[in-house]
């Protein structure tokens, strides 16, 4: 555990350099300013009621894949290319500890950025819209946790890809993966998928959206809610296992003679 925390600490230090902090701070300020826009416009009082949880779902479903792409692109392959992994593994740490540190690093970044760029601007935006907001903290917290686990699932896919493909190419593949899930599988082929059981299993497993599906069914307490969680967990286990299998097969000297 000590090695993992050391690796995460230095990874965060390596990532959050001044230039990146400034750029993201500018984006954060922009997001807050945009959220405050409704206050400056004389909006008619429509007396509408907004459900924070529904808004949170749509915000997180957009931001989480984007942030995962940002933080995990080339996460392993770049460490191999720059000989960083070689340096680390000459020390008394295992490949598994290294991989755990990458998961922890990615999830910490995901929490920081979703709070800064998704949750805080959404809350400010709702306040400035002066609408009646239906806010249930417990439900919103569960929604957030479910989306974070879905983020972890995307992280595991990205890390698995990063142990297979070189450089930043895994961002491209993951982006296509997510795009296929949202368009082809959930859109055009959704009817086909619902008619064919093997196709349904294939799409649920390889294009997982179990946890975000479960959030939508949170209030129903139906069997589908638990089924979605199980699909999510199955996919998560599958891709995490692939990443651990691959890291043990990886050639850390791939770039040397």
């Amino acid at each position, binding site marked *: 555990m000590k*090695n993992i925390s*050391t*690796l995460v600490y*230095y990874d965060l*230090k*390596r*990532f959050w*350099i001044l230039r990146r902090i400034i750029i993201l701070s500018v984006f954060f300020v922009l997001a807050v300013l945009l959220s405050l826009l409704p206050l400056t416009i004389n909006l008619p009082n429509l007396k509408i009621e907004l459900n924070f949880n529904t808004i949170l779902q749509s915000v997180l479903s957009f931001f989480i894949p984007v942030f995962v792409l940002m933080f995990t692109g080339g996460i392993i392959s770049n460490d191999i290319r*720059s*000989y*960083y992994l*070689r*340096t*680390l*593994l*000459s*020390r*008394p*740490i*295992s490949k598994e500890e290294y991989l755990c540190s990458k998961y922890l690093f990615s999830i910490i970044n995901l929490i920081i950025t979703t709070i800064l760029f998704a949750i805080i601007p959404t809350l400010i935006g709702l306040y400035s819209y002066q609408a009646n907001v239906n806010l249930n903290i417990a439900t919103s917290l569960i929604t957030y946790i479910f989306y974070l686990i879905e983020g972890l699932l995307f992280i595991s896919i990205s890390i698995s890809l990063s142990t297979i493909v070189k450089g930043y190419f895994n961002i491209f593949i993951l982006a296509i993966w997510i795009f296929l899930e949202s368009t082809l599988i959930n859109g055009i082929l959704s009817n086909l998928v619902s008619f064919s059981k093997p196709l349904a299993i294939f799409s649920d497993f390889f294009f997982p959206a179990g946890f975000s599906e479960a959030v939508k069914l949170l209030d129903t307490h139906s069997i589908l809610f638990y089924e979605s969680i199980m699909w999510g967990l199955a996919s998560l286990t599958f891709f995490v296992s692939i990443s651990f299998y691959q890291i043990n097969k990886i050639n*850390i*000297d791939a*770039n*040397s*003679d």
Partner: protein
Amino acid sequence: MIEIENITKTFKKYSKYPIKALNNASCTIGHNKVYGLIGANGAGKTTLIRIILGFEQQDSGTISINHKSNLLIDTKKLIGYQSDLPYISKSVKLIDYLKMNSALAGYNNNDSQIDEYLVKFKLTGSYTKSLAELSKGMRQKAEIVSAFIGQPQIVILDEPTAALDPIATLELREFINSKRNTGITILFSSHHLSEVEHICDNVLLIDSGQIHKEFEMANIEKGALEEEFRKFITEQN
């Protein structure tokens, strides 16, 4: 002590031209000595080092360090390694790199040793610079420092003088001499015979994946290693 027994490693096994990098290589690297590893390009020096460090898995044979497998984490705690391919990063400062290496070696709050080595290797003026800002020679010095950080019992130096200027080379020689009597075993891989001759107690000659000869420098006259090496090459041809 490193015991290497009948190590064989073949790359591209199933291709038309498999590369036998190591072919039943065996040797024992004793305590408290500086060992040189010399050989031509492609002789198997780097592959042997990679296998000792666990970067590569041998096809057959065993390696033990102090009678334990080289792959155990506890065994890795005994080893310091200077890579011939240094890590270069714009976002990592030299001081952070050394602190990280120290922490991973199990030595947190090791500032006094880091400071001592920074002074010794004349890196004090660069400790806040990023690794990418350092010159090639300075990067190599940083790698050497990180190999000696903590209290390693075995230090593996892979071409440590390749990018060093003559003064830094002499300083490294003095530094290794100072470490010689502290119980550290050093394995020193190099192409420069004169350097190996000056620094090492024993020299292993590797060729075609086999360790052909071990010279004890105490039994060889100054300057004779080159002659011995030349003789060996002529015999092989």
